């Protein structure tokens, strides 16, 4: 294995392949910055050019895209509150409030540092876990996957801030929207009304852009001025953000590992990973008062996880030929173009290639985040430019991002509908993340519940992993309530001089 480790690096250090890797990173950063476009789009762009290319170079390029996107998509998430891609939604929760306080550079600095460390940890973990990957992946059957969706749903309370009831309402609406389209366990189309566009259900990117991007653009325009409130001035630098990320090093490590593990398990999809991480950091923090208002930990946790995730989702892709995310499905296709059949045989016969992939991942993460750090100062200035200069461009990009999903006019119509819904929810102070989570988890929950029942009747309820995850859910929920009570008590006895409510 050590030999393959060195071989992999030697193969990759070929200058042409390094150029390809860098090209992939640059493409990844561009599609990452554009809201709505993610790794899937970046990979689809370069796929046609892969025929006849050097396999190692082509793979390095694809990995470059995959690794750079979750770093670069932090820009729109932090600067405008617009999800940069479906994997970077949770960053808006605290990153955007920081930008509005004029601390965009600080948020970006922290995010990129966490991304870089997370990405490298992802690559390391991939190396360390190669021998154990099979048993871990095989341990998650349909019943275990169902329990993971329940774990995700249990975080809705935490993500609803001080209005849990409204959060649950929003989540229910999300679950309802998730029902549209082909049913997961029957050849039946629900709420599609014979409209072919709706057969595939509502596209996640369109929903996310509608809910978050459109209301934000409208509200900033209505308020006038720039994204950052001018009265606060420029505060915090990216060096400060970097230092904060390093200060919270255990948080970075913890969420990187969590990101890898969830990415590892095929069948969960990657869009839920950052929300699970965000929910977890909120649930386990003693002082929750600043979450949603600009707590740097709310940026660090999802950003560590979403870069580390790329290491995780590679595992099932390489080992089982089962894509861990939609971008990985494309990567799988690219491997087939090069005549590489993923599967357990790959680890036995072509370990060099596996290490080329791992090295590409590590190097692309480092290059990608350094490039993003270099870009963060000039780009953060955008938050001080009067927004009416930027708004038309942003709207065009958002619409383009939505439209590339299926290139059907329905995308634009839905963007409008969800934009209106998002704006109403924002006005009525109904939290929007629960809606998104309900939407993402709806088909998964339904599918895995039915499959568990079909496979094992009700016996699945007594499987050890199911019970373990159930216990974890209870601990997280009860623990969260206890911590909150204790904190409220402490604030009371300290005579209300806590940090809560001191926001200028």
């Amino acid at each position, binding site marked *: 294995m050590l030999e393959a480790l060195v071989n992999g690096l030697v193969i990759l250090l070929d200058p042409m392949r390094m150029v390809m890797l860098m090209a992939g990173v640059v493409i990844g950063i561009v599609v990452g910055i554009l809201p709505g476009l993610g790794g899937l789009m970046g990979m689809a762009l370069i796929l046609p050019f892969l025929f006849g290319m050097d396999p190692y170079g082509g793979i390095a390029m694809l990995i470059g895209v995959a690794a750079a996107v979750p770093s670069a998509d932090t820009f729109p998430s932090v600067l405008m509150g617009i999800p940069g891609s479906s994997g970077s939604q949770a960053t808006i929760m605290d990153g955007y409030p920081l930008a509005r306080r004029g601390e965009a550079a600080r948020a970006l600095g922290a995010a990129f540092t966490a991304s870089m460390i997370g990405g490298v940890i992802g690559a390391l973990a991939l190396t360390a876990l190669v021998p154990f990957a099979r048993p871990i992946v095989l341990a998650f059957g349909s019943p275990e996957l169902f329990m993971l969706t329940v774990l995700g749903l249990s975080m809705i309370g935490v993500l609803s801030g001080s209005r849990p009831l409204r959060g649950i309402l929003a989540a229910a609406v999300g679950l309802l929207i998730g029902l549209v389209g082909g049913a997961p366990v029957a050849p039946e189309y629900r709420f599609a009304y014979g409209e072919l566009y709706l057969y595939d259900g509502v596209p996640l990117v369109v929903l996310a852009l509608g809910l978050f991007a459109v209301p934000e653009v409208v509200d900033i325009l209505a308020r006038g001025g720039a994204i950052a409130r001018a009265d606060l001035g420029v505060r915090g630098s990216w060096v400060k953000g970097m230092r904060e990320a390093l200060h919270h090093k255990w948080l970075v490590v913890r969420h990187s590992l969590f990101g890898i593990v969830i990415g590892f398990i095929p069948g969960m999809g990657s869009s839920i990973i950052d929300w699970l991480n965000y929910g977890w950091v909120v649930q386990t923090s003693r002082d929750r008062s600043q979450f949603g208002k600009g707590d740097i930990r709310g940026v660090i946790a999802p950003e560590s996880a979403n870069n580390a995730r790329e290491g995780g989702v590679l595992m099932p892709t390489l080992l*089982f030929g089962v*894509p861990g995310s939609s971008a990985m499905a494309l990567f799988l296709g690219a491997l087939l*173009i090069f005549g590489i059949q993923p*599967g357990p045989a790959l680890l036995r016969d072509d370990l060099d290639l596996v290490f080329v992939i791992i090295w590409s991942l590590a190097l692309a993460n480092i290059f990608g985040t350094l490039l993003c750090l270099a870009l963060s100062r000039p780009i953060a200035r955008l938050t001080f430019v009067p927004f009416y200069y930027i708004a038309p461009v942003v709207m065009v990009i958002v619409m383009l991002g939505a439209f590339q999903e299926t290139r059907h006019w329905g995308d634009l119509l839905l963007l409008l509908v969800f934009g209106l819904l998002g704006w109403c929810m924002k006005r009525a102070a109904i939290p929007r993340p629960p809606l998104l989570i309900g939407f993402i988890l709806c088909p998964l929950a339904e599918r895995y519940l039915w*499959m568990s029942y079909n496979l094992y009747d009700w016996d699945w309820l007594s499987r050890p992993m199911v019970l373990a995850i159930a216990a974890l859910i209870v601990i997280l929920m009860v623990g969260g309530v206890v911590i909150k009570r204790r904190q409220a008590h402490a604030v009371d006895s300290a005579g209300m001089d806590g940090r809560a409510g001191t926001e200028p």
Partner: protein
Amino acid sequence: MSVRIFVAAAMVSALVLGINRPAMADAETYYEGKTIRIIIPFSAGGGTDTFGRYIAQFLGKHVPGNPTVVAENVTGAGGLLGSNEFAERVARDGLTLLTASGHLNLRAFLGLEGLRLKLDELTPVVAAPMGHITALNAKATGITDATEFLQLRGRVTKGITDPVGLVESIVALEMFDIEYRAVPGYGGRGDTRLAFERGELMVNTQSTPAYLARVVPMVEDGEAIPLYAIGFIDADGNPARDPAAPDIITGPELYQQIHGDMPSGPAWEAYKVVANLVQNTRGTMWVHSDIPPEALEALRRGVEAMVQDPEFIAAGEKTLAGYTVISGAGLDQIKDELDAAPDEVVTWTQSLLTERFGVRFEN
């Protein structure tokens, strides 16, 4: 020297013949300066996409007039959006082709609700085969000999993705008259294989390349055994081995080993039609039959030249996974088999899918 003279003479005579026949001459110039658009109704990176892009890469070089060839993924509704666009909204000028999968062809053949593609109005330009192999989880069932397969007892689980997409494996189980429990909800064949490896599913059918790469290691560890290949049906209606896995016996052969006779009845009739339809056309490039004859001729010539191109053959070794591209007479056979398929097979397969899985058909 003499060979070179012969080739030169042949080329000159071909040229003369070509000029003498008007349709032929038009075929030489029809695609000059034009762009052929290939609709791929599935997302980038999948098997059909890979095949479509492989052909797209070489076709322009060989079709007379050297048209530009562009492949475009028009995805949505399981291939319905792209297929319907091709069926209803493109000009019949030979400038638009459709890359279909075997299962998309089957959907059109059976008349699935919502799909407007009519195979009898189309002509195949080029196709590629791919076989399928069914394996049994030896660890979970305790069966280690394929001929004891019918003694399966208890919960025989088979993972279902989209029933129409698994039809060859379902029809095979029907032929063996196996009682099984269908578990719908899997996202794709990869997911079912993972569940098979986990011991959730007892029987599992994979494409032959996927079987060779990912199930064979399980077989080597004694966790699984190969049961049968779906195999192909030759022109006389007899089973033929899968060229990529010639050592694995076909379903009908296994049936004969167990029962002593070849299978018979509606399930076997359906097997014969479905096996070839799905597997011979796993990648098919279709064009409308009513395009100008010179366009059809130019495409035919282009494909004939393309399959001779050593670069095309070398690139295909990987993409085609051990199979060879079907052109010329092989395409005529595909068309003939489609035309000759008895109506009873269509109704029998439709009612199997409707009664067991609730799939709805147009007629």
